[in-house]
């Protein structure tokens, strides 16, 4: 059992003791600093103390069987210390773990097929824990997206725990502050199956981390979308760990006008016999200032598996552009169309205006 206040205090002192992060990238399993993408001229306005937590900050709409409680009322809940970031020495990660202002615990009871929409009403660091009971198959939509980013700095931590046989569908539309760190952690219990779709359009500087742990017989299908606007920097890491026989299919897509980093990590542990993993990264670079780094990695300790990954980075083909323009579209319209095609799997889940809004105007 975790005492929330104590946990926050401990984490806060750890947070305060750490130096400010410089931009870093993992290459070949080791952290290196990259001159070209170092965001040294951007002073990340990190808070000097954790904000005081409250019970507000979310608007909930839903039907079916579910319970929503403010995180503050969940003192002593075992989920609170979380798996992710516990042993982290990254300032932003610790902030997301314990330095939130708004906290919510969404509990989906076993067998429930509830439909819940959670929206962040105040742009401030938040944490959302979702527990999906056995054999429940809820659809959960989380929105913390704001197209005009008024707030300077924000973090978000979303945790999904799917118990045995659960089948959650989770859609996350995010990006609310100019400098943002967002994390998604998922633990999928035996024979569970999750559909996760995320789209983050961050402001000037965004770091996004997704980590999934798969137990025996579980499977996940994830589409992770990102939009990095001109003069912005976005770094997305998505990692899947197969602990025993499980299946993952991760599709990362990004439209990059500024500087984007996409890192997909697949790890298959010894004994995860029969696991299947497929991870694809696709970065469409738009405009002369676009820069991209892709780094899909595989770390395999079990022979009886099928693991593959692929990545592609490039611009819109001149043939495609030419074809569209020969149908009367100007360059901006043509680019918008192609982007629509890139984000097509997201458009069936999120409002087009949110996904493409920036792109059509920007």
């Amino acid at each position, binding site marked *: 059992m975790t005492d929330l206040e104590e946990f926050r205090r401990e984490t806060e002192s750890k947070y305060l003791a750490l130096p400010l992060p410089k931009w870093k990238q993992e290459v070949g399993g080791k952290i290196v600093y990259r001159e070209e993408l170092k965001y040294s001229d951007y002073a990340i306005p990190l808070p000097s103390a954790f904000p005081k937590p409250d019970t507000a900050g979310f608007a909930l709409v839903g039907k079916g069987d579910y319970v929503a409680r403010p995180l503050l009322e969940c003192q002593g809940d075992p989920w609170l210390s979380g798996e992710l970031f516990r042993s982290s020495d990254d300032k932003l990660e610790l902030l997301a773990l314990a330095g939130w202002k708004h906290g919510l615990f969404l509990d989906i009871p076993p067998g429930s097929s509830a439909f819940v929409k959670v929206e962040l009403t105040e742009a401030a660091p938040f944490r959302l824990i979702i527990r999906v009971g056995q054999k429940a198959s809820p659809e959960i939509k989380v929105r913390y997206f704001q197209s005009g980013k008024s707030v300077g700095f924000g973090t978000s931590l979303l945790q999904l725990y799917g118990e045995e046989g659960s089948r959650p569908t989770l859609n996350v539309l995010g990006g609310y502050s100019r400098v943002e760190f967002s994390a998604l952690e998922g633990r999928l219990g035996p024979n569970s199956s999750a559909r996760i779709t995320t789209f983050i359009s961050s402001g000037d500087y965004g770091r996004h981390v997704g980590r999934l742990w798969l137990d025996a017989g579980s499977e996940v299908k994830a589409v992770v979308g990102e939009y990095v606007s001109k003069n912005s920097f976005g770094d997305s890491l998505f990692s899947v760990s197969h602990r025993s026989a499980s299946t993952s299919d991760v599709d990362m897509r990004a439209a990059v006008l500024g500087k984007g980093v996409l890192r997909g990590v697949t790890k298959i542990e010894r004994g995860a016999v029969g696991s299947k993993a497929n991870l694809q990264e696709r970065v469409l670079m738009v405009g002369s200032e676009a820069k991209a*780094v892709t780094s899909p*990695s*595989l770390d395999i300790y079990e022979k009886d598996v099928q693991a593959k990954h692929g*990545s592609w980075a490039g611009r819109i083909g001149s043939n495609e552009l030419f074809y569209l323009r020969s149908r009367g579209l100007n360059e901006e319209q043509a680019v918008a169309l192609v982007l629509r095609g890139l984000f097509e799997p997201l458009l069936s889940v999120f409002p087009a205006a949110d996904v493409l809004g920036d792109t059509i105007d920007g």
Partner: protein
Amino acid sequence: MSKIFQEVRGLNEGVVRQLSNEKGEPEWMLKKRLYSLSVFESKPLPTWGPDLSGLDLNDLAYYVKPPAQTTHDINGLPENLRKTFDALGIPEAERDFLAGNGAMYQSEVIYERMKDQLMKQGVLFMSTDEAVKEHPELLQKYFMTRCVPPTYHKFAALNGAVWSGGTFLYVPRGVKVQMPVQVFFLFDHPSMGQFEHTVIVAEEGASVEYIEGCSAPEYLKGGLHAGVMEIFVGKGARVRVTTIQNWSKNVYNLVTKRAIVEEEGKMEWVEASLGSKVTMLYPASVLSGRGARAEHLYVSLASEGQVLDTGAKITHAAPNTSAYVVSKSICKGNGRATYRGLVRVNPGAKGSVSSVKCDSLLLDSASSTATFPAEEVYDEDSDVSHEASAGKIAEEQLFYLMSRGFSREEAAALVVRGFMEPVTKKIPLEYAVEFNRIVDLEMKGAVG
């Protein structure tokens, strides 16, 4: 036979000076060695790759003079060497197939023969030591200047300090060398370090193929091979380097290979890695001129106790450059093969195209593999892709071949051969035959 200079263990300025003095080198080379030594001492061991803790750099002999003098005739070779050549299946000296043949035994080239044709064409083929004396102005232009400077990394610096032997191959403008040039390296002395330094220059429009075979047939106590290869591919020139590495399984094989490719030039690396305890091999191609191309083909077999860490480092530094990488690795026992690559497209390198494909086949439950590629694309006018896969031999492929009468073992060996084929088809026939034979041997009993 005189032995002037016995082995000396450990490395310090004194050893380097003695080495240079023994070789009768000019001042500029000694200076370079000493500078390299200081760089070596200032850099830490890399920790981002395989475990190098078993490597004791102080317990190595950095120079051993062999008992025989350099000869130009195979009959002048010492008996045990000739036996080794036979065991390696090295072709008869009179084979027309080969244009030239040099061999390194320990730290000096002792067997060389240049065909008249090469000499007439103006091609220079000699040991690097000889080149220092006979073509200093040429060597000074290329040796550890812009291709592999001592600062490149710790083991390049080490090589710069204690290098000995290696090939200097210079192909003048427009000369196309028809027959491949071959060299063999043998490791035969316990606790020895092998630090050959090869420089290959192909001037504008030239073309040459260079084949290197490495072997250490006897038991060694943790030897280190830290060779360096610097390649300059001129405008419209073509160079292919094929290396068949079969060091004994307690050698640390930490090599540096880099090529600078100019406008419309083409560099081809073909690497077959079978031996060594730990290999760190990342051939690099710098595509510095418009239209330059690079092709990297790797095949490795990591058996019990081996860690083979390989990758391609490609820099697109000019427009319309292209790179193609295929890496096939097989792991058995608790062997581990890792692909660690970097493709970088610099701003302004418009129209760059790069594709990397790495596949791993795991044969045993203790086998493991990883790929850590990175693509850094700093110009949007490019097309950079990467694909990788890992897994075991598909049961259905085994079943299919068994239903044609092959035993399970034979079927597995066939599938493995097919798996490596995109790379092995580029290896010259006799080496490919030998390579396949070694793989088949390793494969026996490999598939349960």
